[in-house]
């Protein structure tokens, strides 16, 4: 597994190659990106098999050894690193060695699978979706760079490398949201995404530096060891965990940083599928999962994670219910599910969160690709103008419905199992209020999924959409493959007979966590999901939906939700009334004090003294001669007085 670093490096190599040589290659070099990520996907299987065969005697692999009992616990973790550079001269006591390194543990392996697979699917899909775009080559170059950065993020074994790739994925996200930068909305959305996530990243950087100060190393394993043996106190652990969580909140669009994600839908739809649904936005969840020992050391940090997650999930699922833009419905649904993952992490549901991350990643990528297929052929984003598309786009309808039913929590599909795991974790570790609100979120989530599925695809087909055609093969095949996973991925959760111990047994943090199923909880969740889809059917197909346009604006509650709880307005007000005024004051200070007084001041003084002194430069030879005479006379007189 020492060669696992190849997985991101291949894509890293593809990106500049496409930029430089893409225009001379067939397909503008897109096949380079696809080949690189396909090779990455192949290497993922090798990594998986290598990891399954590995044990503690394999090179670089170890389990945590408890100090008291001497017993091995925790998952198998393999770490390989090389010196990157020294801060300070090597060999000296105060020099710091920084390393490149990869860390392979179960979470890394499953994330590798998710990222390489979804990226491969989306890049193949984009062949059809982006065909004919003038910046086709650039699109694939940034895609390759994104894939490489995301894979580095997943593999990084130290916080510094993680932070570097963390910012790189942010930059790629910025480039791809603003891909059609001719449109002002895309430009604004790109800037918004970059700035909002940057606010969280500052916190994350401070957290990383705090850990470095306490541990003296950027390495994650060192930090976790320090937390375990008590070198880091609970207060410091809480501070570090919360600061890291700030970065995770920005990236994973948790309240109050969620505002960038819906706007990010201005980018091409495959980008939304890959970056803003399946991979980059789950980086925050991944970060919390990766740094879980630090969070676990501090109960209050986990409580904060749970509360923020629940709040985000509840809030955004209500907005998703009234949003009219198909992509934005999916975006709010993404935020809601990210909130559920955070909630699960905050409720000690480590494996549930990772499992839901994967199940949601496949299903949501599928939904976005389906939505992209709709937008591609109808060129329409508003669900109010759609309907009955199942007659003209049968395949898209089937795969989209699978994704929606899966995320809505209909049994047997993968979303049901993962949501059930989360409910289980919440019911076991948090109080009943959390559980009820989570169930409400689950119900809402099924309801808006029913809406996103029924409104565009069922009911009456508008006349102007009758010419619409289904997705071409390059788009259909990735959707079909993702649909298979959206259906069947959940079966990995069980403890199948034989050696397989279930997903929870593979991905676990401190102790193996097998599959559990509480009958009463499962029954409630099934009833809620089925009822939600039934209500959705009645509301959105039996005509109740048609009156929605009139209803909007009448009820204050609906109005508030439709305005996204006025959060954007509050931010705008804050920026206009507070930030800009403060910025103007700072600007004034800069101009008046720093520029005029401190910088130009001395220069002006010198200039004025020069103007005052220059009057003796008359340009007349005789005035200089007079000066010489006067000078000589003065010298003579002095000499006469002194020498007598």
């Amino acid at each position, binding site marked *: 597994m020492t060669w696992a670093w190849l997985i991101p490096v291949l894509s890293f190599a593809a990106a500049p190659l496409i930029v430089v040589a893409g225009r001379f290659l067939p397909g503008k070099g897109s096949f380079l990106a696809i080949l690189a990520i396909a090779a990455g996907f192949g290497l993922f299987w090798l990594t998986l098999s290598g990891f399954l065969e590995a044990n503690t005697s394999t090179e670089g692999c170890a389990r945590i050894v408890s100090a008291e009992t001497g017993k091995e616990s925790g998952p198998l973790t393999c770490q390989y690193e090389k010196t990157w550079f020294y801060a300070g001269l090597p060999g000296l006591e105060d020099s710091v060695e920084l390393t490149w390194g990869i860390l392979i543990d179960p979470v890394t392996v499953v994330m590798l699978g998710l990222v390489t697979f979804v990226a491969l699917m989306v890049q193949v899909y984009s062949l059809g979706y982006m065909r004919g775009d003038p910046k086709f080559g650039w699109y694939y170059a940034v895609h390759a760079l994104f894939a490489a950065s995301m894979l580095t993020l997943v593999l990084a074994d130290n916080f510094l490398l993680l932070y570097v790739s963390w910012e790189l994925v942010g930059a790629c996200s910025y480039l791809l949201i603003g891909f059609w930068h001719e449109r002002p909305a895309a430009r604004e959305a790109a800037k918004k995404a970059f700035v909002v996530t940057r606010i969280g990243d500052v916190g994350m950087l401070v957290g990383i530096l705090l850990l470095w100060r306490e541990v003296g190393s950027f390495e994650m394993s060192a930090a976790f060891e320090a937390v375990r043996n008590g070198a880091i106190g609970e207060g410091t652990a809480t501070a570090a965990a919360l600061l890291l969580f700030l970065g995770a909140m920005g990236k994973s669009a948790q309240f109050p940083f969620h505002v960038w994600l819906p706007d990010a839908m201005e980018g091409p739809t495959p980008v939304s599928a890959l970056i803003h649904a399946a991979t980059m936005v789950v980086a925050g969840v991944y970060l919390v999962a990766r740094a879980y020992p630090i969070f676990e050391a501090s109960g209050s940090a986990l409580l904060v994670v749970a509360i923020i997650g629940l709040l985000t999930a509840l809030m955004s699922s209500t907005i998703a219910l009234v949003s009219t833009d198909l992509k934005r419905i999916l975006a709010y649904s993404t935020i809601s599910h990210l909130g559920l993952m955070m909630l699960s992490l905050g409720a000690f549901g480590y494996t549930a969160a990772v499992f839901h991350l994967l199940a949601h990643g496949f299903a949501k990528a599928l939904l976005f690709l389906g939505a992209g297929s709709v937008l591609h052929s109808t060129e329409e984003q508003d669900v109010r103008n759609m309907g009955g598309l199942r007659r003209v786009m049968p395949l898209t309808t089937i795969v989209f419905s699978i994704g929606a039913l899966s995320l809505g929590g209909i049994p047997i599909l993968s979303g049901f199992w993962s949501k059930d795991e989360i409910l289980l974790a919440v019911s076991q570790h948090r109080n009943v209020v959390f559980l009820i609100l989570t169930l409400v979120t689950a119900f809402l989530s099924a309801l808006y999924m029913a809406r996103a599925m029924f409104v565009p695809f069922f009911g009456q087909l508008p006349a102007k959409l009758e010419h619409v055609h289904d997705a071409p093969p390059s788009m259909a095949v990735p959707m079909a493959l993702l649909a298979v996973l959206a259906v069947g991925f959940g079966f990995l959760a069980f403890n199948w007979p034989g050696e397989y111990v279930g997903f929870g047994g593979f991905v676990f943090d401190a102790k193996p966590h097998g599959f559990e199923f509480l009958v009463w909880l499962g029954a409630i969740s099934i009833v809620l999901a089925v009822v939600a889809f039934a209500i959705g059917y009645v509301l959105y197909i039996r005509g109740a939906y048609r009156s929605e346009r009139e209803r909007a604006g009448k009820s204050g509650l609906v109005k508030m939700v439709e305005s996204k709880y006025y959060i954007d307005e509050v931010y705008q007000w804050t920026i206009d009334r507070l930030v800009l005024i403060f910025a103007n004051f700072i600007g004034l200070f800069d101009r008046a004090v720093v520029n005029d007084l401190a910088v130009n001041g001395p220069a002006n003084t010198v200039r004025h003294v020069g103007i005052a002194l220059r009057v003796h*430069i008359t*340009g*007349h030879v*005789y005035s200089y001669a*007079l000066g010489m005479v006067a000078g000589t006379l003065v010298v003579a007189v002095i000499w006469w007085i002194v020498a007598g």
Partner: protein
Amino acid sequence: MVPLVYFQLLSAALFVIGLYGVLARRSAVLVVMSIELMLNAVNINLIAAAAHLGYRSVGEVFVHFDGQIIAIFIITVAAAEVGLALAIILRMYRNRGTVNVDEIDLMRW
């Protein structure tokens, strides 16, 4: 033997007249002439002192020629300088149509 001080008085008078000419005259030609006058005042001073000192030191015989040598150098340099100065003045006149030093203030601030 005329006492040295008369020569020095003559020299000083010529020098001051020359100085006055340099400072007060408007015409560049007259300024150059005044400079010549100052140079010659110095020459008189040097030769008088040389003759006086040389006579005083070894009876009737002149043995110190330093003053005379410097005076000859000064005459040579003065001749060269006049040639140069007149050429400059000529160019000045060609370019600006005047040799009035009041109007020549190109190096003013």
